[in-house]
């Protein structure tokens, strides 16, 4: 009897288990559509399929340069190596310590744990994808140097490798905690911890390590700082782990253990007669003045984050196989925290913060245009010229009078070579009709070895009384254009023609009248314009100062070369040449609301070169937003209302077109676009704008395909090469892959970081990256790539600087434009991001960013403008942060008037990964030309209306203006797709069919199994009960 009753409980338990698991599978089946997009991406499945009949090879518009995945990967690997050959910057080379002789390469000691555990990509964002078993396996520093024939000190290598656990650090990523054996960047609230072991720890680990260096006396010390999205370096000691006590004044400065490692190398060299070479493995400019002045250090190089193949290039540079030709893309300051921008870099919460609306903190960029070299060189020029109280102590890192030598270790644009070059500025022509500045520069290799050189064309524009009165700021020198030579043999000369966009020397004047009869215009002041070339911004400004009659007696750090300066005189202020943009749009103020003084008058004093000490920024913190600001920051700025003639907006027409009919139609005014978009339904527009995360989804009414999005920028790294590659050998696709191809497991997060690409100063190499990305896109069927970080390095403290090129707008703009334009030839949509002013990772969902419109337009926006106007990019990612008080996706002036209006952007535009329904501002975003948010969900109105309760057909269908906005953004999105390789393989017969994935079938099967289990258990339970009853229970 007892046994039977035990069985009853067993069957009861089994039935409970069955119903619970059945409920789980049924719930999963019901909610799976909400996550279908993400599940498909994760599993590599597809829930819809494009069916195309009579497909031919002609349906594939874009052609790859490569005949196999092996060729493709070889090209990536080769480019990765060359990027670091040309992007490594030689900063110091005492007594020609480099290049190493062949004999010297056979006795190398790597010192510093980062030599064995280097930073090759971001902690999160542009992380290195380690590849094994492919035709382009990635390598670390040791592997690369050994592959290049170097012989490394085995004793020291074993010592560091046996200490591996000492170098462990953790990063929290979306998929959990990841353990890295290398330096990592601090979290937003975290501090930097130096993992460099003490000398005592090294001695304990291997007592003979110092002696071993006698036989391996080429001592290479690697010092690293990591980088990462959602990471941050806090300026000064506050950013350093307080428990370490390593005499570290700044997270980007050296710790005592790092100093001791360098010193150990120097002492060893004194004993063994070798050489000490220091490598900087970083993306944020470090404070390395003490290394510069350390006479025991023979050579110093900036190698960036080299990715999977860049260390091959570094090895080639050290051995002389490659002659370094990189130049710094950032200023290397003595004390980063002393810069005017750093005074307002941190977490400054509003006094009346309201997390319900993502109202968290503010950042006031009170430094005006003076970031990076524009600050250091302008202030230096003013100290020499004796103007603007420049020599006062405000901002002096050493205390006392401000002196350039105390502030800058290595200037922007600086870089050495194993040879020497002479550059002569032969001619200079300013053509305001053509809006160009053209320089002819003769470059001569005056040394003994072949090498490449970079022509950097700088301008110094007049700073006038008008500017002082109207608060128009002018940098004493600014990069206007650049070109890199081909390799020049010793004694060889070449004349390089450098053509600049003359608008890049125009200044934004928010008070000037304009052609729109409002305020705000680009101006060229009357006066003398100076043009020069130089190895970096400092040499350039010295040339200009020399041309202005200054000398070392006036305080110049060294004499300039006035013979290398050309001038151009503008008799009268020009307010017309740039009053219209390239597409004919009249410019006017659009970003006045980014000036905090517009909201709270008299709050901010912006830095002006008219009075450096009197206007040097203070920290703007503990601010209280006004009621009007709070209202703006509640993000409800567009009211859906009954307006316009909703009947006049056509949806759901039957015009018999599919998107493939407009494949390659570049004229967006072609009437077929309107006909096609009349077919789309209102519901499709509303769902697709709401749920655009990770891929654009198919749109049935116009047969628009799903186009998968990918992150970067160090290569298309969201998916493996094979996840979406075509493996259907019966297809007409010329790029079908073999399902057994080992390269299908390859993941292209292997390129060096963007700082290295910038340091090449080579538009050609940037374009080559666009070429390989384009080819990869064709083979992998991954057409959308958030791959060009065009935010500027406002300060080195933004740990995400590795995904952005430079502190300079022009270098950023033309590296990005070259790259995007090249990729476009292969149909890949490479998007600049994050538009705009994503200058910090701190509180980026909600941070209110304030600055002058002049700063906005001449710095960060100029860094993106060429990607739109010149490269005609068809994709863009917006930003997390606010533009002033307005959510980044709700700023009409920035997104519609500047981006789409002035610049003529016609492509798709996605939000960044904003999941909060309030802050993702869907209705405002659509009104502002954003084509999709980054949310995912079930493709139903119910789902999208649940997320945004105002997003119902009942509401939207009464607002004709919003319906037009919806059709506009869907037109732009599909225009971009039609002009991309997302359309490859499609023709007029293409249509969408739903597919049941294996996981759909598995869920159904599992539900059936659990149903059977439950029913069987219940049956047994009741059978047992019946028996018990009959048995006289």
């Amino acid at each position, binding site marked *: 009897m007892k046994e039977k009753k035990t069985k009853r*409980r*067993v069957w009861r338990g089994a039935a409970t288990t069955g119903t619970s698991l059945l*409920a789980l599978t049924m719930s999963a089946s019901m909610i799976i559509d909400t996550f279908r997009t993400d599940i498909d991406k994760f599993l590599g499945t597809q829930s819809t399929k494009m069916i195309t009949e009579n497909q031919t090879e002609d349906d594939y518009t874009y052609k790859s340069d490569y005949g196999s995945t092996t060729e493709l990967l070889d090209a990536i690997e080769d480019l990765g190596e060359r990027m670091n050959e040309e992007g490594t910057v030689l900063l110091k080379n005492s007594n020609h310590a480099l290049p190493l002789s062949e004999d010297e390469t056979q006795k190398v000691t790597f010192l510093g744990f980062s030599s064995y555990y280097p930073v090759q990509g971001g902690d999160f964002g542009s992380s290195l994808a380690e590849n094994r078993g492919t035709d382009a396996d990635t390598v670390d520093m040791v592997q690369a140097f050994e592959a290049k024939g170097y012989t490394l000190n085995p004793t020291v290598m074993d010592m560091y490798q046996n200490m591996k656990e000492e170098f462990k650090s953790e990063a929290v990523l979306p998929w959990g905690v990841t353990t890295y054996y290398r330096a990592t960047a601090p979290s937003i609230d975290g501090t930097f911890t130096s993992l460099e072991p003490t000398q005592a720890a090294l001695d304990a680990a291997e007592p003979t390590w110092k002696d071993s260096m006698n036989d391996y006396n080429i001592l290479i010390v690697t010092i690293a700082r990591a980088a990462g999205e959602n990471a941050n370096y806090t300026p000064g000691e506050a950013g350093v782990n307080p428990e370490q006590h390593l005499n570290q004044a700044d997270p980007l400065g050296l710790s005592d253990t790092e100093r001791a490692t360098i010193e150990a190398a120097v002492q060893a060299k004194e004993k063994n007669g070798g050489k000490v070479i220091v490598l900087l493995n970083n993306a944020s400019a470090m404070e390395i003045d003490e290394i510069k002045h350390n006479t025991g250090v023979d050579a110093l190089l900036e190698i960036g984050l080299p990715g999977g193949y860049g260390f091959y290039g570094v090895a080639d540079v050290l051995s002389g196989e490659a002659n370094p030709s990189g130049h710094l893309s950032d200023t290397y300051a003595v004390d980063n925290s002393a810069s005017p921008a750093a005074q307002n870099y941190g977490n400054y919460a509003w006094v009346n913060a309201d997390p319900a609306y993502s109202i968290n903190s503010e950042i006031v960029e009170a430094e005006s245009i003076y970031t990076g070299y524009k600050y250091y060189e302008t202030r230096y020029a003013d100290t020499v010229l004796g103007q603007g109280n420049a020599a006062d102590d405000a901002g002096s890192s050493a205390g006392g009078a401000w002196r350039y030598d105390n502030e800058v270790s290595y200037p922007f644009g600086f870089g050495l070579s194993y040879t020497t070059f002479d550059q002569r500025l032969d001619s200079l022509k300013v053509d305001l009709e053509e809006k160009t500045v053209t320089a002819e520069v003769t470059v001569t290799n005056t040394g003994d070895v072949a090498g490449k050189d970079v022509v950097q064309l700088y301008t110094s524009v007049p700073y006038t009384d008008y500017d002082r009165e109207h608060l128009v700021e002018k940098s004493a020198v600014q990069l206007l254009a650049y070109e890199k030579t081909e390799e020049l043999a010793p004694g060889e000369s070449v004349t390089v023609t450098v053509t600049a966009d003359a608008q890049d020397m125009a200044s934004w004047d928010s008070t000037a009248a304009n052609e729109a009869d409002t305020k705000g215009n680009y101006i060229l002041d009357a006066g003398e314009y100076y043009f020069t070339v130089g190895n970096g911004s400092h040499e350039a400004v010295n040339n200009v100062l020399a041309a202005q009659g200054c000398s070392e007696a006036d305080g110049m750090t060294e004499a300039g070369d006035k013979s290398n300066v050309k001038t151009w005189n503008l008799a009268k202020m020009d307010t017309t040449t740039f009053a219209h943009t390239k597409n004919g749009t009249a410019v006017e103020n659009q970003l006045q609301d980014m000036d905090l003084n517009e909201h709270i008058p008299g709050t901010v004093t912006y830095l002006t070169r008219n009075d450096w000490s009197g206007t040097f920024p203070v920290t703007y913190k503990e601010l209280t937003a006004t009621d009007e600001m709070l209202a703006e920051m509640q993000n409800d700025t567009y009211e859906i209302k009954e307006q316009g003639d909703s009947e006049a907006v056509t949806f759901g027409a039957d015009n018999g077109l599919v998107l493939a009919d407009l494949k390659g139609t570049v004229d967006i005014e072609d009437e077929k676009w309107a006909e096609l978009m009349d077919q789309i339904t209102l519901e499709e527009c509303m769902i697709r704008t709401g749920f655009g995360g990770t891929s654009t989804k198919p749109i049935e009414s116009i047969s628009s395909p799903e186009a998968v999005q990918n992150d970067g920028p160090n290569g298309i790294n969201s998916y493996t090469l094979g996840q979406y590659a075509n493996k259907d050998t019966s297809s007409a696709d010329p790029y079908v892959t073999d399902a057994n191809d080992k390269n299908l497991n390859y993941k292209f997060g292997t390129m060096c970081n963007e700082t290295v690409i910038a340091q090449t100063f080579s538009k050609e190499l940037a374009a080559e990256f666009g070429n390989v990305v384009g080819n990869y896109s064709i083979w992998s069927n991954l057409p959308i790539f958030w791959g060009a970080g065009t935010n500027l390095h406002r300060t080195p403290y933004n740990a995400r600087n590795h995904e952005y090129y430079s502190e300079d707008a022009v270098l950023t703009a033309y590296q990005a434009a070259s790259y995007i334009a090249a990729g476009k030839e292969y149909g890949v949509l490479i998007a600049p991001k994050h538009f705009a002013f994503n200058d910090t990772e701190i509180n980026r969902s909600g941070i209110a960013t304030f600055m002058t419109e002049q700063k906005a337009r001449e710095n960060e926006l100029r860094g993106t403008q060429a990607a739109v106007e010149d490269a005609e990019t068809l994709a863009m990612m917006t930003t997390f942060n606010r533009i002033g008080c307005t959510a980044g996706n709700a700023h009409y002036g920035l997104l519609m008037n500047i981006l789409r209006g002035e610049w003529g952007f016609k492509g798709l535009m996605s939000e960044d990964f904003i999941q909060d329904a309030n802050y993702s501002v869907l209705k405002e975003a659509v009104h502002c030309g954003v084509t999709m948010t980054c949310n995912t969900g079930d493709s139903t109105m119910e789902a999208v209306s649940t997320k945004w309760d105002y997003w119902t057909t009942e509401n939207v269908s009464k607002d004709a203006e919003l319906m037009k906005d919806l059709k506009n953004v869907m037109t732009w999105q599909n225009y971009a797709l039609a002009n991309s390789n997302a359309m490859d393989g499609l023709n007029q017969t293409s249509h969408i069919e739903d597919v049941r994935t294996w996981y759909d079938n598995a869920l159904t099967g599992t539900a059936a199994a659990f149903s059977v289990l439950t029913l069987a258990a219940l049956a047994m339970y009741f059978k047992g009960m019946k028996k018990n009853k009959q048995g006289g229970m």
Partner: protein
Amino acid sequence: MGFIKKQSAGFYFMVLTVIAALAGMVFYMINCNTDYFRNLGMNTIIIVLLTAAIVLEIVYIVGYTKMGVNPVMDMIPLVNGVLLMVAFALFASARVNSVATILSFERNAQTMADLSSAIVGMVCCLTAVILNIAGSFFKVVKDEE
């Protein structure tokens, strides 16, 4: 025989189920009122499901204590399995995107603190499911048979 001495393992499992479900519900409500998650609103279905499960669980415990073996009572763990599991699934599905967002893009002390109540709440709900299943295999009172 004292009340406690009469109880068997099933009783303790079910009491723990009630506690876990109650904790899950409390943490869900706390989480819905955190700064980060407030905009997502509160799903009343989750509250209703958890409340119903708690009430039924108490009915089950009391019923068995009072009535002994009863097929109606035996159906309660089955029903509770459904209620608790659906509540957990809805809770988790409403938070998974935010968890990913916070950990990857918006990680700071405030968001992590807000996230913690969601994690605890989901763990409690899942624990309640497991405890309910486990308890259904055991006697509630020792003299049940």
